[in-house]
């Protein structure tokens, strides 16, 4: 992959320019908004914009220089997310500390499987191989009190962070299809962009029209109005962005609709985990510290869902 090919791929170039445009717009918007209304709490929004700048830059670098950067970047992101979830988790016993090293060793293996495109091993490595292996290592340590809880919590943490994000990397290893130019990069951009824009629209519609809470106990800010508004907007956007995918019109609508719903699921699942621990919402976290999980919450579910839809439709 080099600069010439990069500029030759019109679809990808267009969406990258669009993303940079949106990021510039968002940065300026929050800056001016913050100046005009200093009392508005924009830390969360500003942090999100900042982390998306980083993601966008890594992505562009990966395309221009070498795609292998993407695998390293997603691997590092998985690692930091796993570290975060294992730190805040109260459900794991002190004796399980050493088990975590196996989870960290699993990260390079999983991303290597993604890089070489060993699909069959890739999809079972964490849910099956690591699941059995971690249980067995817990048994070897010999501490049986509450071992069942550790056997379920640790593999779940791996699933939510490493397994999910590695699917984004695997998109880049998918083979070329005749007549579909954007390729894995297009698919990756599509799912990440749709997921994030869905978050933004669910938030915005909720702020504008939100009345009826969906799950007040877990996420008081999630309303039916925000959810429906977000899903509809995202579905329409998916139709316009279908040039990044091999989808037909109907497929693009259905897939965007599914991503929008899956994004909501990821959001509330991570919220529920945080509630259980007693962690506050990100907005009140010390700026610049922690909070990786909050950035990837919806992506943790949409990446897997999207990958398997695409794989089953076009690559199997």
């Amino acid at each position, binding site marked *: 992959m080099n600069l010439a090919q990069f500029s030759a791929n019109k679809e990808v170039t267009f969406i990258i320019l669009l993303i940079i445009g949106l990021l510039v717009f968002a940065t300026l918007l929050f800056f001016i908004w913050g100046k005009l209304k200093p009392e508005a709490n924009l830390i969360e929004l500003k942090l999100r914009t900042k982390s998306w700048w980083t993601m966008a830059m890594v992505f562009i670098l990966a395309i221009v220089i070498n795609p292998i950067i993407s695998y390293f970047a997603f691997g590092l992101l998985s690692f930091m997310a796993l570290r975060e979830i294992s*730190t805040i988790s109260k459900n794991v016993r002190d004796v399980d500390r050493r088990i975590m090293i196996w989870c960290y060793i699993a990260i390079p293996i999983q991303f290597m499987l993604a890089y070489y495109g060993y699909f069959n091993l890739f999809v079972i490595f964490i849910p099956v191989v690591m699941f059995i292996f971690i249980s067995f290592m817990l048994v070897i340590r010999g501490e049986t009190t509450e071992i069942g809880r550790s056997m379920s919590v640790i593999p779940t943490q791996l699933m939510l962070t490493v397994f999910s994000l590695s699917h984004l990397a695997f998109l880049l290893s998918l083979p070329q299809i005749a007549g579909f130019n954007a390729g894995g990069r297009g698919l990756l951009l599509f799912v990440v962009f749709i997921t994030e824009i869905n978050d933004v629209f669910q938030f915005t519609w909720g702020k504008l029209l939100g009345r009826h809470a969906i799950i007040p106990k877990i996420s008081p800010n999630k309303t039916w109005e925000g959810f429906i508004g977000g899903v509809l907007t995202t579905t329409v956007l998916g139709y316009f962005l279908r040039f990044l995918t091999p989808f037909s019109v109907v497929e693009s609508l259905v897939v965007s609709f599914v991503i929008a719903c899956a994004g909501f699921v990821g959001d509330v699942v991570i919220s529920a985990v945080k509630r259980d621990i007693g962690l506050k919402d990100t907005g009140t976290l*010390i700026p610049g510290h922690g909070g990786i999980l909050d950035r990837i919450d919806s992506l943790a579910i949409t990446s897997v869902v999207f990958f398997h839809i695409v794989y089953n439709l076009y690559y199997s």
Partner: protein
Amino acid sequence: MRGVLLFVTYQVFMRNFLRILVGVKYINVAELNKHAQFILVANHNSHIDTMALMSALSYSQLKKTHPVAAGDYFGISPLKSFITRLFTNALLIQRSKNAEGKNPIQAMSASLVKGDSLILFPEGSRGEPQKMQQFKKGVGLLLKKHPNIAYIPVYMTGMGRILPKGERLLIPFDSYVVFGEASYSHTDDTEAIVKEIEEKIIALGVAFQKSKFE
């Protein structure tokens, strides 16, 4: 030569290793740059503590800062003592129970007079992970002697899980180094100084936990 070694160890290797792989995060680290000379007073849970504090220092501070370490632990063999001194700039003192006071304080005092900074762990030993022990009064004696030198209270959390006492395997966990505001000792009462510092570190911890949890 020594400077190059410290630079490579902390500024190049340790800082990035701790931040990226281990997960150490610094809060209010700018406080360090406001003072030419200081005594860092921190709670102690792990060998990571010293590494984390040394990595927070700038290059010029690094050369002039000595973590105060137990001679009866790190100086037990000539090799261990040599390695400790070489890589950490450590000031090894004896923490024997009967001769409390005198000698160790003089050694620390001497390096303060030279214009150097110190890193102190008044808990004395790493103790149980994530639990704070009663502070020893050495820090009080020292500050009584040097009321014109600023001390910076530091609260550290999470290091006890990364590398607890008695463990050899380092496991990454998110952990935090929180620097407090620098201040000076106002009284001649050793116990009062120790108590004030202890309370400041506990307060830093409470404020930090509160900002993270409900």
